[in-house]
């Protein structure tokens, strides 16, 4: 048996300090971390359990926006009436993630921090080459089984897909991650793999996610999360889109549009090119479809994941048009 220390944090400050020590890891719902420890990817020496911390599981929504505590359970966020009302895409992203059992355990902080599902990453005893696990060791996925890998934001070092649904919705609405005092846009919180795929987040040792803040917007209020997959439930996205739409008073001209992609990129992927192409234009199917193709500009496939390049723009277009139809 591999021994590790278990520490139940009594305050956020204590948790941060404990987690700053080498080999220490925060434990929230455990639905990612325990799995990774079992398959040998995570080898914590100390687990700092933060689930008993007070005041970090709140969900507060007002006209300025939503503040969701890092320890709020996915299930609560998905069901929260004001999240559903003012940020439908966020609620939809969360309830389409994982399974009911996992959503009851898992926290929002842990959800953002979930790791890639790349099967080579998750199998260190059989595949030693993985730049994300072991910088410089190579990438076992390239040339292997790649149906689930990213087509956007990849590098020669790593093509692993970021699998989370929630962060995809968050990045569309300019949400920020609160790391105690410090705040970062979700877009800046997640890093591209580049030459350092091991470094996935702009979070420093001793930092901890305390909350996620989503500013209110008309686009967020009229939003949706469309998740496409082979199985009806309990599967990561083949491609997904978080979309928010605000129309001019004429009811046809696009004033504001937010588009983010999931299931296809190495990080939650904001598709600004699509937004820019359509803002100020009349919402009209052909224009939407044409603009949606910009979502995958620069995409690179690795064989079996080619279909994602075909699929993602269709998902984007469908989501925008569905929102447009919903009066």
């Amino acid at each position: 048996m591999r021994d590790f220390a278990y520490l139940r944090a009594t305050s956020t400050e204590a948790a941060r300090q404990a987690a700053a020590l080498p080999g220490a890891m925060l434990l929230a719902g455990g639905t990612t971390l325990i799995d990774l420890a079992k398959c040998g990817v995570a080898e914590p020496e100390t687990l700092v359990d933060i689930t008993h911390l007070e005041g970090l599981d709140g969900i507060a929504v007002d006209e300025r926006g939503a503040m969701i505590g890092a320890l709020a359970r996915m299930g609560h966020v998905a069901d929260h009436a004001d999240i559903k009302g003012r940020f439908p895409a966020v609620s939809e992203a969360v309830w389409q993630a994982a399974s009911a059992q996992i959503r009851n355990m898992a926290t929002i902080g842990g959800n953002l921090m979930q790791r890639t599902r790349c099967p080579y990453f998750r199998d260190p005893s059989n595949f030693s080459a993985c730049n994300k696990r072991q910088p410089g060791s190579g990438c076992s996925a390239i040339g292997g089984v790649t149906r689930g890998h990213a087509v956007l934001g990849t590098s020669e070092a790593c093509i692993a897909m970021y699998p989370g649904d929630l962060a995809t919705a968050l990045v569309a609405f300019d949400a920020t991650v609160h790391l105690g005092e410090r705040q970062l846009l979700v877009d800046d919180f997640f890093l591209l793999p580049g030459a350092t795929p091991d470094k996935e987040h702009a979070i420093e040792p001793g930092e901890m996610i305390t909350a996620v803040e989503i500013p209110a917007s008309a686009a967020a209020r009229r939003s949706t999360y469309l998740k496409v997959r082979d199985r009806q439930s309990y599967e990561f996205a083949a491609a997904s889109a978080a979309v928010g739409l605000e129309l001019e008073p004429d009811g046809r001209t696009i004033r504001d549009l937010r588009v983010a992609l999931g299931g296809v990129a190495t990080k939650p992927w904001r598709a600004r090119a699509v937004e820019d192409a359509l803002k100020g234009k009349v919402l009209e199917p052909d224009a939407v479809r044409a603009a949606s193709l910009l979502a995958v500009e620069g995409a690179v496939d690795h064989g079996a994941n080619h279909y994602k390049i075909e699929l993602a723009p269709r998902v984007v277009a469908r989501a925008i048009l569905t929102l447009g139809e919903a009066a």
Partner: protein
Amino acid sequence: MTLELGPNQQPAHTRHGSSIGQPLTRRDGFLKVTGTARFAADNHPPGMLYAALAVSSIARGRVVSLDVEAAKAHSGVVEVMTPLNRPALAADPDAKDHPFMFRLDLLQNDRVRYPNQSIAVVIAQTLEAATEGAALLSPRYEVLPARVGLDGAEGFVPRGVGVGGPAVQQKGDVEAGLESARTRIEATYETPAQYHNAMEPHAIVAAWDGDRLSIDTPSQGLAMAQGRIAGLFGIAPQNVHIRSPFLGGGFGSKGMISGPQVLGILAAKLVGRPVKLVLRREQMFGPVGHRAPTRQTLRMGMDGEGRLTAISHHARTTSSTFDDFFEPAADASHTLYASPAIATSHDAVRLDTGTPLFMRAPGEATGSIALESAIDEAAHACGMDPLEFRLRNYAEVEPMTGKPFSSKALRECYEQAAERFGWASRPLQPRRMRDADGFLTGWGMGTATFPAIMFQAEARAVLRADGSGLMETGAQDMGQGAWTAFAQIAADGLGLDIDQVDFRAGSSDLPNAGIAGGSGHTATAGMAIHNAGAAVIARLADLATGNEASPLFGAGNEGVLARGGRLYRRDDESRSESYADILARAGLAEIEGRGKGAPDPASQETYAKHAHGAVFAEVKVDPDLGQIRVTRLVGAFAAGRVINPRLVRSQYYGGMIWGVSFALHEEAVTDRRSGRIQNANLADYHVPVNADVPSVEALLVHEDDPHVNALGIKGVGEIGITGTAGAVTNAVWHATGVRPRRFPIRIEDMLG
């Protein structure tokens, strides 16, 4: 432990008339829902240690080194079993005395022949220590390139396929038939490797006492497992006691004792203490069997009226490099559709995988999806409705052999399911139906079939002085409800109410009940139970009718009826006597009877015996996004006598959902460089979830079969997969106009 219910665990059975045919709920339901059913891995004999398997990373080569010292140095590790210290066996695990003796990897040498092959066993005080010990072995290998995929090696024609049937068969002249046809089709379909993945992994708790061995392990065939283990260890079969009261699913993977289970026994022998060994989910992908992939090419010719003039069905499949099991996929074309010329053939390649094995409807499932797809293509080529086409080619006798069917209510299945589904309003052309949300809607159908097989079984019945009964047979309940169905047969066989019968099963010290496989368990063990009951009643009738003091005196054995614990005179039911009174007068504490179940060789020669069914499916396909959803399934099945309609329906539902899984979800994905399966876990190896099966209906079509056995039972365990997978596929075509030829069908196949 055998299957037994405590007094306050007796569910209340309400029923009318005899037990057979009643929709009783499962007798083990209470134990299962309260979590008190004790599965193999729930056992903890005193002094038990935990074993963890170390398995190979590579597909092919040799283990060069294992760091046994590091593992042994780990706290809690008691012993490491490798080829160097593995206790001797009495038989070579690579020997093959008969076709169903499969070669096992029992640390006989350092060779690796597939990924996840056992290469060592670590035994420790705790599971955690054993697991860490296994990781510390850090094996080093000499690696040879893996042979992967249907073209991964030189093809050859196997000597036999399935249970040993000829690989190549034909009747009539297929080429001439194709030549003379007005319309022809040819199509090639590919099915992937699939792994059984029962919820309960293979598990064993083994304890030695001298040369006696006591085992808790799930087994679909207790007597076979007992014999195999006895042979390997050189002890008498009766010295091996296996308890298998409950299986958390088997699907064929627990039909034969597997290598890891035997390693658990070896580990217990090595350390001289009881040992538990449970496979991790990913270790289920290798040493315990799988459904081999296939590539099947069908050619069909039809005359001007849509009558088949020829069927040619060729299947390529795979086996391991060291053993023989060949998925008999092409044989599906032997039994369903009438044709003057039929040719079936198989070839195979040997790959660096574990040996494929029986997996629920082996051959029938793979063959059916290709055959039913091809039939659909043929119907379309003839411009005919797929149901009309199937009726045009309805087989009145078994096409390959010309034998009459012992019974065949397939026409009724077609009729009832089509009616229920609303098939009549189906447009002939594809891509003609859309729902209110704009989804392409399609309707497809498939014919289901599965042979009615019987093995050999025995049962022992006892009637006790108080008039209650005991029925014993080493039958296996895999969750399908065998314990309940057999108790129903036992009750009727003994002429008792079901709560008057003590039914015991699930243990190797009971009479051999044969294997729970081939959909033949209910028929085989059921007949043994029935006959054992009849033997007891015959003795009882002798006692009564031969004694002047009995109201039944002189009625003769044929002149009495057994019911509710009494014998009645057939011609005057006012004259009767209770079992207890008959035994009391005779001064007997109990009487015993034994019965056998076996196929009848004469009727075997004369008749073709199959269950049949028809399955209709509705799917919706998103025209842009390619998502496929099955929205409705209706099946109708005729499989002889229904012992318990509730359980039978469950089997059909489960089979039909498996059919959906086959068409749309299940696939083991192999990394071609390493030969490793990359989705060896239940997050990535997909089967349908509840949301994928919104509406499933199974209609039970009445069928009397006087030839299969005295009870008229065929079998229901596997047939549901067949037909369904094809029906879903054909519905996808009907929705989209895209003909799927590679399974499972995925989003990318629909993006067009």
